[in-house]
């Protein structure tokens, strides 16, 4: 009959072993992997920045833009006009009275 070896340890033995055990030192790469270095440049912070806007506010802004676009497409703003300009009181003629200027006169 073969002799059987038992590797079972008692609680006391395990506790003694645990007291002697020392945890291995963490590799340097572990910290970088778990805690990546944050960029502190203003440019990166700018692009990463975000704000929280309530949905009703966004809906109101979108609606206002749509109304503005619809109104803009149906009305034409007159050009900036010097209201009392020289042309302000000009009116169309009732009859187009032609004058023919011959080339020699027209060039003058």
């Amino acid at each position, binding site marked *: 009959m073969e002799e059987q070896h038992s590797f079972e340890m008692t609680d006391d033995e395990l506790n003694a072993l645990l007291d002697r055990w020392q945890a291995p030192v963490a590799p340097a790469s572990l910290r970088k992997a778990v805690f990546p270095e944050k960029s502190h440049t203003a440019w990166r912070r700018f692009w990463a920045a975000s704000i929280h806007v309530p949905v009703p506010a966004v809906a109101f802004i979108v609606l206002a833009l749509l109304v503005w676009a619809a109104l803009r*497409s*149906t*009305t*034409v703003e*007159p*050009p*900036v*006009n*010097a*209201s009392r*300009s*020289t*042309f*302000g*009181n*000009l*009116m*169309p*003629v*009732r*009859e*187009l*009275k*032609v*004058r*023919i*200027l*011959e*080339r020699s*006169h*027209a060039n003058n």
Partner: protein
Amino acid sequence: MRTISVISLAILGVVSLSAADRPGKIVSHGMTFENGVEVHIDVVAEPPVKPNSSIQGTGINYSDGKLHRYIWKWKDPEKIYFGYDLTAEPLPDGTIRVSIDPLSLSVDELDKLAGAKMFSSFRPVIPRCPYPQIVKDGDTIAFDILVSPDGKQKIVDYLDFSRKY
């Protein structure tokens, strides 16, 4: 239908005086008819006015062998538009027959050219038009289009005609 459209808002303040061969020129339009007659339109203020004044709108459109010339005023005292149709026909003797007729563009067509519902709120003004005129190559036809109540200030169209062939 062949259509050429030119709309220009002429603001005197931005018109380069160096480009003006006629004193008081506000803006120019030009085109060549399919029959080879070339027309150049100078819109001229007489007497010339100082910058910072503004004329309203002026433009041309070409369709069906006619040049449609139109002018509009935004206000003072009301919104109006008017214009005329121009046709030019070369004659065998080298002259050109020029016909000036009432503007045939509809409000819808003008709105389409403007890209907005604009002319539908304007009152049309239809001036009486002259009989057809016979001019020589290089001649100019001129007529007033806008006049002040006292007659001292005018806007005049100068139409220069030439034949390309």
